[in-house]
Structure formats: C-alpha cells, structure tokens
C-alpha cells in the first residue's frame, strides 16, 4: 500500500513543470500507480496547451496605437528639450544627407509632402490588416519584385531588414498620385509592422537627403534615390526607425 506522501499541489507542479527535481521520481511513481491521477494531470497539461494555442496569436498582433504612451505630455512640459530634439534631428538629417550624397539643400517640396502623406495613409490602412496585409507574400519575393518593377517602370529592389528584426511579409501595388506605387510590409517577432512605400520620382527632383516627418502618429523617413522616392513608415521611435531606414538605404544601394 502506497503512502499518501504526495499532495495535490505537487501533482499540479508536475503538470506545470514547476516541480522541484528531487520530487520527480516520487511523483512519477505515484502517477504510474494511480492512473486516474495520471489521466487528470495529462488533461491539465493539455488545458495549458489549449490556452497557448488559443491566445498566443495575440502576441503577434500589432500593438494598437491607443496602447502606446502619448508623446505629447512629456514634450509639452519640457519645451527646451523639444527644441533640442528638433535641432538634433535637423543635425542628424543634415549629417546623413551629407554623408549619403553630399550636402544638398533639401526643401520639403509639395511633392515630398505628398509622398509622406500617401505613404502614411497606406501604412495606417494596411498594417492593421490581419487576413490580407499584402497581395503577394514574401514566399514569392522574386515574382513580387518583377511584378512591381514592371508596373512602376523601373527595377524595384526589395530590401532585407532581417538584421533589425523586421522580416518581409510581402508587398502590394497601390495607386499613387502620379501612377502606380508599391508598398512592402515588414514585421518583427512582436508583431510590430513597418512599411516601405515606393513611388516613381516623376518630378525628377534631385533631392536625396534623408528626411524625417511625423504624421498621424506615424514616423516616416523618406528620401529620393534615382528613379524612386522612398518612405519608410512605422510607429516606433525615431532612432529605431532611423536604424531601419539606414539599413534599407544600404540594401537598395549595395
């Protein structure tokens, strides 16, 4: 006759993987001798699995904007800091522009504002999409690039941003102000999404500096490069977005 040396808590701890190692042998022996308990613990373990299967997908959902801390509050309390930040960003933008293509006078012309606006609208429309975030998935990347190149009339490259944690989800064709445009979507392990908007540089503006804008709580780095204007949008903080933008730029200009 086996002694009741175990308590219910230890059985649960066994099912949850929380049992202290030295008790393992005894619990396992108990479960062999008591098939009803064994069955019960197996059912509990399966409950845990079911909970993960049901709710783990939530972890990959993009975080809604309303769950992000509004930035206005601390900024408005510290106008000095805000000015410093603006100056810092102008400096960063200027340095980058110089670094990338030599110093150029970069005026945010109306066509560039249109680029930013179209890119952010496309960003906020498609990033929350659960079922159909893209038209062509990353598994057909070669087809995606070929198709968009054909529609935009110049070779479109798809940058790989994996080293920043953002993997390609895919892309889609969009109507732009001056013709077809393209959007590539990226997602990191936490379900945060970025989009790279690409449209033809119809105005032929030579401007190539990296610039930053913020619209509707979406941060955008944009630049003109050869036949295309690019805008990288995401609701992550500026330094992080900048890092991704730099990588995208390098990828597009190997």
């Amino acid at each position, binding site marked *: 006759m086996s002694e009741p040396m175990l308590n219910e808590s230890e059985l649960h701890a066994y099912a949850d993987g929380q049992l202290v190692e030295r008790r393992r042998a005894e619990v396992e022996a108990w479960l062999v001798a008591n098939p009803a308990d064994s069955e019960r613990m197996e059912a509990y373990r399966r409950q845990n699995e079911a909970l993960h299967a049901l709710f783990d997908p939530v972890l990959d959902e993009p975080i809604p904007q309303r769950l992000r*801390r509004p930035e206005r509050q601390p900024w408005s309390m510290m106008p000095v800091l805000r000015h410093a930040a603006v100056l810092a960003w102008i400096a960063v933008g200027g340095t980058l522009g110089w670094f990338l293509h030599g110093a150029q006078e970069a005026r945010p012309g109306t066509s560039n504002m249109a680029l930013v606006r179209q890119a952010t609208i496309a960003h906020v429309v498609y990033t929350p999409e659960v079922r159909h975030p893209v038209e062509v998935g990353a598994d057909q990347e070669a087809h995606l690039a070929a198709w968009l190149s054909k529609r935009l009339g110049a070779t479109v490259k798809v940058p790989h941003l994996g080293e920043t944690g953002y993997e390609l989800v895919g892309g889609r064709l969009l109507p732009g102000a001056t013709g077809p445009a393209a959007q590539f979507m990226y997602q990191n392990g936490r379900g945060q999404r970025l989009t790279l908007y690409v449209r033809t540089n119809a105005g032929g503006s030579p401007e190539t500096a990296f610039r930053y804008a913020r619209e509707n709580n979406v941060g955008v780095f944009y630049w003109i490069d050869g036949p295309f204007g690019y805008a990288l949008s995401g609701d992550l903080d500026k330094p992080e977005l900048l890092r991704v933008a730099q990588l995208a730029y390098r990828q597009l200009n190997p």
Partner: protein
Amino acid sequence: MSEIDRLIEEHIPRLRRYARALVGDRVCADDLVQDTLERAWNKFHLWRRGSDLRAWLFSIMHNVHVNGVRKNSAAPPLLPLEDDALQMPVRATQEDGLQLRDVHAALACLPQEQREVLLLVGLEEMRYEEVAKVLEVPVGTVMSRLSRGRERLRQIMAGAAVPALRVVK
C-alpha cells in the same frame, strides 16, 4: 520614448494576451490593457527598480479588472467569441477532442478568481509564488483555486453537467 516607457512596452503583448483570455472580447481586453498602462505610467515611481516588472504590471491589471468587475457586476461578463478567433488554426495536438472553441467557452464558465489563476499559471507560466504575489493571496489559495478551476474545466470539457452550485470558498 523614455527607458521606462520602453520597459513597460515590452510587456504589452503579454498583457494583451492575458487580458484577451481573461475577458474574452478584443475591445474590452484592450480597454483593460489601456487602463492598466495608464495607471502604470502614472504610478511608475511606485515600482521598485530591480523588482519584477511583469509581476507589478499584472498585479495592476488584476486590481483594475477586479474594480471594473465590481463596478459593472450587472453587466454580462463575457461576450461571444469573435469571428477571427473562430478561424484560428487549430494545432494538430488538439485532435484528442479538446476543442479550442470549447476551451474558450468553458473558460468563460469559470468563476473569475479561478480563471485568473488558471491563466497566470497555464498561459503566463508564472510560478505559483508569483501568482500569489500578483493576486495578493496566500500560495495555498492559489493552489486551491487552480485545482478547482482545472477540474471544473476538465469536467465541462468532458461533457459533464456543470454543477449549478455556487462554489463556496
């Protein structure tokens, strides 16, 4: 974004997962997360640096939720499953009859205090002592809620009639 915001933000996906499982409905769950975050941002000076931030945030969520439930005790506690959740892929391990939809529905039948413990242990994989800290109850209470919650869930899943008796602590 400040370091504090970043620290808190790392936990948002888990807070959302837990809230979704706890209240069932997506919008209500995010409401709960939002209330929790607002309180956390405002009370961050109360968090002891170096102590477990996850436990602190979950404990805020617990209190916000309990207060909300008290305030709205007349309102129906759970809404039916959403379309998206219904179409979630079912893993192959579920072929044994443990249907996810049934688990979701059965979970809603549990008393809230049992559901909380079951989720913190089974989903959030907290140690029993952490759960006790988050809920501010003794470990023994955690274990008895866990035990009763799991058994009740098992019986519901096995098709046994749900006892109409109120569970008395």
